[in-house]
């Protein structure tokens, strides 16, 4: 199964309530995905810094007690520039003014068990095992602010229940994808991408879709062209919801095996696997509610 949620606010005043509006959406999808949850929020910018890197320490023994301050300090010494840190339990966001690849390489060498969740100017990413309510409380999802977000609740079918196999998946910078469904050719996609130097973190089928689409974008395709190629190359059942710094995008396979419903008002666009996750939203009784068609591309810009 799995549940998908997405929310894009059109009214700037609503940006500070993004997380608050989203938490019931995520919890509403608990029956569809009780084993893990995650979300990516697009914050609009990195403030005084150029890049932000979301990092997870839950795979290490220290876990929740990991010494993020210590890492930030060492990183500062190593780079010789200031480093921003926003840490909570097993999760931290480092903000830097250097090439993020240098930072990630250093982190991997010094702390091999740390898992890089995302990199970008705008994206913050959180994911972990646990019920959606537990994960939302763990990272204070209710306080998140931003322009749009992509969330997921997981009921694993294609790979093990571990934090790194939870969704959203990311590739490159400021791109993320969540998936409801299962792909039948993820290994074919991997065999196509790996010789081009594209590295995979897990054996998860969704990661193959994520890396394929990000690869197309990096090769110069616009989002529409990349998604069109996705329809040609990705085989299986899917509703995909993707986030970029200025848009949410949704596609469903030709058989529309996995559900999706959209509610749009003057203030927001909300997407979920089922209406139960939209029922609490303000003005929902007057929203334009519809089911996105299979094999169509839906792109909502901020």
């Amino acid at each position, binding site marked *: 199964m799995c549940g998908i949620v997405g929310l894009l606010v059109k009214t700037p005043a609503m940006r500070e309530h993004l997380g608050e509006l989203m938490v019931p959406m995520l919890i509403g999808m608990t029956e569809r995905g009780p084993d893990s949850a995650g979300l990516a929020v697009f914050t609009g910018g990195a403030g005084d810094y150029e890049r932000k890197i979301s990092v997870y320490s839950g795979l290490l023994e220290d876990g929740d007690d990991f010494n993020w301050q210590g890492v930030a300090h060492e990183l500062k010494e190593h780079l010789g520039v200031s480093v921003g840190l926003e840490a909570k339990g097993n999760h931290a966001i480092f903000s830097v003014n250097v090439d993020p690849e240098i930072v990630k390489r250093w982190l991997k060498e010094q702390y091999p068990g740390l898992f890089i969740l995302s990199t970008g100017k705008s994206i913050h990413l959180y994911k972990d095992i646990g019920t959606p309510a537990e994960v939302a409380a763990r990272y204070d999802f209710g306080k998140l602010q931003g322009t749009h977000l992509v969330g997921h609740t997981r009921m694993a079918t294609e790979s093990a229940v571990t934090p790194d196999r939870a969704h959203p998946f990311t590739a490159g910078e400021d791109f993320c994808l969540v998936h409801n469904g299962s792909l039948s050719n993820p290994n074919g996609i991997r065999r196509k991408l790996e010789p081009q130097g594209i590295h995979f973190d897990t054996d998860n089928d969704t990661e193959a879709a994520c890396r394929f689409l990000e690869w197309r974008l990096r090769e110069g395709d616009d989002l529409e062209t990349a998604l069109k190629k996705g329809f040609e190359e990705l085989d299986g059942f899917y509703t995909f919801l993707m986030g970029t710094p200025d848009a949410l995008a949704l596609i469903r396979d*030709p*058989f*529309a095996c996995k*559900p999706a*419903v959209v509610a749009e008002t003057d203030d927001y666009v909300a997407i979920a696997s*089922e*209406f*139960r*996750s*939209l*029922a*609490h939203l303000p003005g929902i*009784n007057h929203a334009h*509610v*519809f*089911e996105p*068609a*299979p094999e169509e591309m839906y792109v909502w810009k901020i």
Partner: protein
Amino acid sequence: MENLTFDLAQTRVSDLNRYLHVEAVKKPAHKVTVKNPDGAHNIAVGLDSPVEVEVIGHAGYYAGGMNKTGKVIIKGSAGTGVGENMMSGVVHVRGFASNGAGASAHGGLLIIDGDAGLRCGISLKGGDIVVGGSVGSFSAFMAQAGRMVICGDAGDALGDSLYEAILYVRGDIKSLGADAQIQPLTETDITSLTDLLQQAGFNHDPKSFKKVASRRELYHWNADANQEY
């Protein structure tokens, strides 16, 4: 007529359904209003009395499924499998319906004012379905008996591997499935259409519909077909 209200913001669906299964069957026909359905699954499934259930808002999966003699009106949209495996009675969706609407319905009438998703009326076994809007791909797949009236368009592979169900389409058909063919309307078809459109409250001219029925070429094994259907 007695009118009871269940507010699903306060009451669980299982309490509503327990009332409908245990209490409602002991009473004469009456009305039950369901407020704040908020996309909950299994609303008013398995009715077995002439009770009328009015749902104010959007219903989740399988609303009105397995209905027998009841009437379910959904003043909103319906999720996957609305009215699936109905035996008799009426399920009326005022908005749109998701995939698999009326799947394997044996009897009764399913009315959808808006569009229906994919696989509408799949494996229909004798029920009637009237869709005010369009239906998605693979609708009426392997439909065995019953009638389907589509006032809008139909997606790909309409009526694939049809048995004896009859389909009527007013708009465009993207593609017909294997063994489905367009046939001329007969007097019986006009009577059927007039009756179904009237029951569903649509005002179209029955003559503006195309009839789709089985070519009956898949009924028997054909060794010479070279497996090219």
